[in-house]
């Protein structure tokens, strides 16, 4: 039998992995961010992410047309800013709906006696 703590860690990781994209598009639809500033923002929102996870993920989302990027060379150092595309906004809407429906269903099961 595996340690129940390991089982929990694995499951918690699955939760986080599944909700990370929603968190990213939610933050990026309000304002454009560069990699490190997004990392710190998520951290301040009590959702710390590894850089080695976040930076490749941003690139993947850009490739999928969810995000677009532009280099800003006016700053102290050149930085690559990401913002949501039109498709990204649609994705956000769909994900939010899915998320709240899922939340509702699970909460019902968790809280109510069946």
């Amino acid at each position, binding site marked *: 039998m595996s340690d129940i703590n390991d089982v929990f860690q694995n499951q918690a990781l699955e939760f986080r992995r599944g909700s990370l994209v929603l968190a990213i598009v939610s933050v990026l639809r309000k304002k454009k961010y560069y*990699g*490190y500033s997004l990392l710190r923002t998520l951290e301040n929102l009590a959702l710390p992410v590894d850089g080695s996870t976040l930076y*490749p*993920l941003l*690139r993947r989302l850009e490739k999928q047309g969810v995000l677009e990027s532009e280099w800003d060379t006016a700053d102290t150092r050149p930085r*690559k800013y990401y913002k949501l595309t039109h498709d990204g906004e649609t994705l956000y809407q769909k994900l939010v709906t899915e998320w709240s429906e899922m939340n509702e269903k699970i909460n019902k099961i968790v809280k109510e006696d069946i």
Partner: protein
Amino acid sequence: MSLIERYIYAVTRHMPAAQRQDVSDELRATIEDTLDEKKTRSKKNIEAVLIDLGDPEILARRYSGAKQYLIGPTFYIYFIRALKLSLAIGLPIAFCLILISQIVAVPESLISLLISTIGATIGVGIQILFWTALVFFVMERSGVSSKDLGNGNWTPSALPQIPMKRQIPISEVVTDIVTYGFLALSPLFLQKLVGVYSGDIHEPFFNPAIPSFWIPIIVGFGILGIIKGLIKLRARNWTPLLALFNIVFAIAISAALITAFVGTEIVNPTFLSILQTHIDTTTSLSQLILWTQWTIGISILVTIGIYLYDAAKSMVLAYKK
């Protein structure tokens, strides 16, 4: 600085040129941003930032989106299925072919025959594993979908039947065929392989003076035994007729063994006298012959006992509901 550049190089060196510059610039800016948070740009702090980002090869793989496994969950069950099937068909055939080719090539001894045959069969198994894995590895990378393998067409009617309880396990059939195959072929190699070699002298273990009419009898029993194995393979359950065949076979082979033991000198006396000069001198040749007689006699009795037990068992099972 050079440590950071080395890290960026390690991450981006296998990327396409167009992507490499962009990723490098972004990664550099990110690392510098992270460093700004630290009080100093000491080597220790730089190292800490890089350690946080982790193994550059892992980061590179995440950027490229390349698969980080040989065979993924989509293909795994098909891989295992194909592997089992290939091994189940390939290994017995390979074993038999290698064994025959080794016997034809006249090996030095029985031990070397077994070692080279088993070794070569294991080699064939490794080849099967390698090539099967390679095919699935290529499928995994080349974007074959699981639908191409007939997935999704599954219907309940494809379920296998629950096997009927069999009286004859497949292992018994395999043992029969291997043992009697060996017996049928034994006149070809036994005299060459089992014996004593000393300089130019080669004395076989079995007496060369055994009348040659025994050879067709031995081969005949071997072939009958193989036929018995094949019938058992087809029936998988004992029938009265098959049990009768088994009993007749057991009695015939017992009679042949007793006749051979009583009527002929099975072990080569010259072999024994050579053996006697090589072991301690306190044992006389007549003693050695006596012991050999006893050993052979007891082995034959045990063999007959096993045959008769098996014959009785098969008859009981044949009439069991």
